[in-house]
């Protein structure tokens, strides 16, 4: 499919590759403003406390600017405004006088150097009244347990919180009781997924300059400059045209910057008080107390017929959201949606509860509930197949949601019909490539070290688009203009988490305009000079962001052809454009008519000299669909039955992302996500001390166990291939890939472990200790 294009589908060196590899790329922490102060934040020692007295006089005596709860706006807000107001639960303030987790911000200082700020911080005297904390989500729901939030704000109304339940979602389809009665086999299981830290490279940072007009100029770590602007405007009562958030490279995120980061409003408050620029770069320790993946307890009951067809499913999910409700309600809806969209299940019941605990607040992380649901659903489907004596592949092919079915892209309110699906192709080809038929049975494998092959499939939505407005806002905007020399400026507030969404966007622009990729550059962008874009999340970069760029580029192309038509005397719709790599220009021509040719540069220069105006367009796009991107994983692991160690050794990974915009970065996204998923399922977790509510690793990255390069399979042993699909609603047939790439990884590893040693382990992380224990228990039976 891709061969008809000159830029799309061809490998290229992304424009930020060299600056990033050579250390020249600028991130928020590189921003230096003359006269700026350095900020530091005082964080709670206790997991739950009331601040009785806070004395900043000693810090102020050494010249530091100090702020406490008394100095910040009191209105509650929610830092994530991707959802519409009716689904946005507000429970926090800029600083608090009732900290709800160790590490919550209670005061902040700004001083001439970071060292001075650190000293000032230690001079602040705080008198705490410690309150009883609660760390376990099940215990937190019991009556008599301490309440974290008595009430929150939902659409300007006060809503009471009972039993620490922050949000609840119930969904029911068909008759689940009847379904289980009709089933030939019913199995039940419980999975626990871990509280993983995002481990993104860049810690949350902000630089804020107070402007003479009463406004602020901001650089900050974010996936959404426009939402940061709206929030800062709202919280501090500044008109939006005086809040300018500048787009700057993001040092990775994995979802942790979907919300305005917690330090930006603190930095704004400091800068406004100091009347000087303030820079705040958090340390790794602070960042580890700032966010994590949503950990879940998933109880699942599954009913199937003898032939493997599913008839009923019942799931109960409890999410430990930590101290704040950043997006628990959309999370629960999505979690239900991921299950609904995984299998055709005529009878289904889903109950999800999100519970407050005195821990770091959980937030979005690559997959947003999908890897968690996939872990239990795909391992239990495998178990059903094994119990029925069927090939798990056959069972998957019988039950998957595919072409023509309804897909829930972002919970129950964002649905669309599937128009492209490569699942069958990916499963069949992948099975062939890994040697699925020869994987053997666990009981036949001999020796201390055995191997097993697992299969799991997954998907993720491409954007939160849909035919109707749902609970998630989803549209992008961009401006594109052709310069007087034929080069192109793209002014897009869309962010790039590192996966290459913006590079894909530039390729889409080059393809649409018919100019060489070298002619197209991202222009410096901020909220004042760009139109609204919701956020980079939900695997929407290529599909929705790229789709918007295509729409705007088509308008630019139209204007370009109209101007060229005036010069050449050929009708605009009869003109074509081709990139000329020698001229480094797009060339507009009338096919078959010699002499009717002109470069884009000549058209743009003529338009200027004759005062026709700039060849430019600005527009927004809401995608009317949310097509799923699919992935199928086959992974081989080696398990040492004497030590419980699990080593992934080989993988075949198939992906359906529609048209592949860039083969190098699509493969890289899959490799990276596979590694990230392996670390998630095999070793990562943030644990808390029972008494003090501190992280057991105290926030030290050195004490947080992640897989390292040496623990990973050799990249040469990972084969990636793509489905031959075309998504008619996406730019040049493309869908997303981002989050789809990680979702089946936990399940595929658990399935491979089963194939090696014959035990199901459903508590993440699957550590050697747990494997060995499970083997011993099995042996004992």
């Amino acid at each position, binding site marked *: 499919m891709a061969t008809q294009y000159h830029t799309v589908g061809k490998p290229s060196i992304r424009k930020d590759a060299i600056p990033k590899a050579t250390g020249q790329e600028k991130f928020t922490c590189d921003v230096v403003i003359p006269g700026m102060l350095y900020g*530091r934040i005082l*964080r709670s020692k206790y997991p739950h406390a009331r601040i009785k007295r806070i004395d900043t006089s000693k810090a102020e005596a050494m010249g530091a600017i100090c702020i406490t709860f008394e100095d910040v706006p009191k209105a509650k807000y929610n830092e994530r405004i991707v959802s519409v107001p009716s689904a946005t639960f507000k429970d926090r303030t800029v600083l608090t006088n009732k900290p709800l987790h160790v*590490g919550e911000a209670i005061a902040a200082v700004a001083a001439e150097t*970071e*060292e001075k700020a*650190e000293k000032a911080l230690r001079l602040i005297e705080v008198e705490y009244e410690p309150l009883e904390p609660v760390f376990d989500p099940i215990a937190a729901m019991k009556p008599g347990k301490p309440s974290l939030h008595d009430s929150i704000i939902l659409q300007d109304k006060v809503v009471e919180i009972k039993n620490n339940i922050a949000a609840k979602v119930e969904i029911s389809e068909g008759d689940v009781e009847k379904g289980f009665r009709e089933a030939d086999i019913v199995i039940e299981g419980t999975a626990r997924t871990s509280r993983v830290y995002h481990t993104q490279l860049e810690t949350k940072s902000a630089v804020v300059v107070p402007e003479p007009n009463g406004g602020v100029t901001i650089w900050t770590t974010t996936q959404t400059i426009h939402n940061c602007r709206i929030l800062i405007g709202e919280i501090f009562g500044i008109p939006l045209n005086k809040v300018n958030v500048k787009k700057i490279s993001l040092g990775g995120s994995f979802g942790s910057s979907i919300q305005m980061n917690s330090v930006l409003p603190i930095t704004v408050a400091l800068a406004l008080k100091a009347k000087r620029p303030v820079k705040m*770069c958090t*340390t*790794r*320790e*602070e960042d580890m*107390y700032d966010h994590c993946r949503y950990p879940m307890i998933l109880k699942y009951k599954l009913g199937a017929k003898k032939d493997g067809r599913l008839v009923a499913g019942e799931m109960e999910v409890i999410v430990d959201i930590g101290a704040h409700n950043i997006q628990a309600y959309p999370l629960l809806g999505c979690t239900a949606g991921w299950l609904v969209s995984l299998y055709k299940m005529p009878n289904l019941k889903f109950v999800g509860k999100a519970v407050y605990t005195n821990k770091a607040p959980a937030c979005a992380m690559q997959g947003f509930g999908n890897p968690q649901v996939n872990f239990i659903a795909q391992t239990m489907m495998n178990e059903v197949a094994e119990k029925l004596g069927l090939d798990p592949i056959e069972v998957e092919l019988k039950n998957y949601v595919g072409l023509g079915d309804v897909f829930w892209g972002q919970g129950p309110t964002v649905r669309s019909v599937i128009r492209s699906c490569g699942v069958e192709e990916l499963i069949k080809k992948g099975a062939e490539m890994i040697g699925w038929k020869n994987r053997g049975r666990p009981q036949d494998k001999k020796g*201390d070290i055995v191997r097993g092959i697992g299969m799991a499939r997954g998907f993720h939505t491409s954007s939160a688009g849909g035919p109707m407005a749902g609970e998630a806002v989803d549209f992008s905007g961009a401006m594109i203009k052709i310069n007087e020399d034929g080069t192109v400026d793209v002014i897009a507030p869309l962010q790039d988490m590192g996966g290459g969404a913006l590079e894909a966007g530039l390729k889409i622009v080059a393809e649409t305009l018919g100019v060489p990729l070298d002619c197209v550059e991202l222009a410096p962008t901020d909220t004042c000079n760009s139109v609204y874009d919701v956020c980079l999340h939900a695997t929407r970069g290529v599909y929705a962001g790229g789709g918007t760029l295509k729409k705007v580029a088509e308008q630019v192309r139209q204007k370009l052809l109209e101007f060229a038509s005036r010069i050449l005397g050929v009708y605009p719709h009869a003109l074509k454009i081709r990139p000329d790599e020698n001229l480094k220009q797009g060339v507009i021509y009338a096919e078959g008519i010699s002499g009717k040719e002109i470069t884009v540069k000549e058209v743009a220069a003529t338009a200027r000299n004759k005062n026709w105006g700039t060849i430019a367009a600005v527009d927004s796009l809401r995608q009317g669909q949310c097509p799923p991107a699919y992935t199928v994983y086959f992974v081989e692991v080696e398990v*040492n039955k*004497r*030590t*419980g*160690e699990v080593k992934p050794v080989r993988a075949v990974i198939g992906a359906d992302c529609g048209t592949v915009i860039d083969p190098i970065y699509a493969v890289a996204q899959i490799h990276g996500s596979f590694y990230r998923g392996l670390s998630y399922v095999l070793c990562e977790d943030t644990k808390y001390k029972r008494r003090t509510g501190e992280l057991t690793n*105290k*926030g*030290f990255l*050195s004490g947080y166990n992640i897989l*390292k390069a*040496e623990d990973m399979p050799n990249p040469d042993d990972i084969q990636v291939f793509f489905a031959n699909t075309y998504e008619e609603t996406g730019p040049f047939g493309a869908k997303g890939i981002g989050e789809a790439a990680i979702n089946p990884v936990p399940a595929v590893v658990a399935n491979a472990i089963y194939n090696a040693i014959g035990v199901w382990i459903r508590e993440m992380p699957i550590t*050697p*200790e747990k494997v*060995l224990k499970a083997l011993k228990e099995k042996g004992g039976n």
Partner: protein
Amino acid sequence: MVNTRILVNEFEYFEPKTVAEAVDLLARFGKEAKVLAGGTNLLVDMKLEKVSPKYLIYIGKIPELRSITRAGSDVIIGANVTFFEMMKAAELKDYPLLREAIESVQLEIKRMGTIGGNICNAAPTASAAPPLLALEAKVKLVSKRGSRVIPLEEVFVGDRQTSLAPDELLTEIHIPALDGGCGTAFGEIKRKIKFAAVVSRQGDTCKRCRIAMGGDVERPIRVRNAESLLEGNRVDENTVRSACEAVLAEIDPENWYVREIAQYLFPKVLQEAWERAR
């Protein structure tokens, strides 16, 4: 909450050019001073504010601590030789177990970390400790009061605790030549358990053996009880099992997982050394 981006506490910094200058400083400042070598442990501890030395004595500018030489049948490694330099050193080719133990150290630590620092930090998981213990290495300690050479085994007295006096500087590690025909082996399960073994045999009888252990244990040690159960005896399933019991006796009974894997790894390492011996 600590701030690991900066070193919060202030200290005075010295760069002595000779051992004499260094021990002079140690004599002056004693417990208030810390010796800085590769810094892979000390700087982390300082950032975490676990230690806050008033004086920092950097020994990386003392040339004599950076060489590997031979003295008679011994090989002498300067305290400031990095893991990376040890991996490349021709003088250490005859001690494959040392190389094996260092090989798995992560690259950044290999480049920065030094052998002297690894010993003086005295972590139970110290990479070089088990092979050096099994090789019966000695260390030279220098102070203004004089110098002494003691077995490495006597250095490790507890978790991150050494027997060095506050004014002493570890300057050299002495490794004796291996017995002709002996077999050596090293094995580890990362962060959990490490074994090093040096075995000499006469037919089916173990003539001499040295077994050392490190990892998730109190400190790096020689397992002398295991050694004496093997020496002078046939090496077979029974003796290996009783040697393994002696190893387990040195591991915390609560630490079930490490005990389990020790039972897998120890016989493997011992067997490997045994088979390599002639």
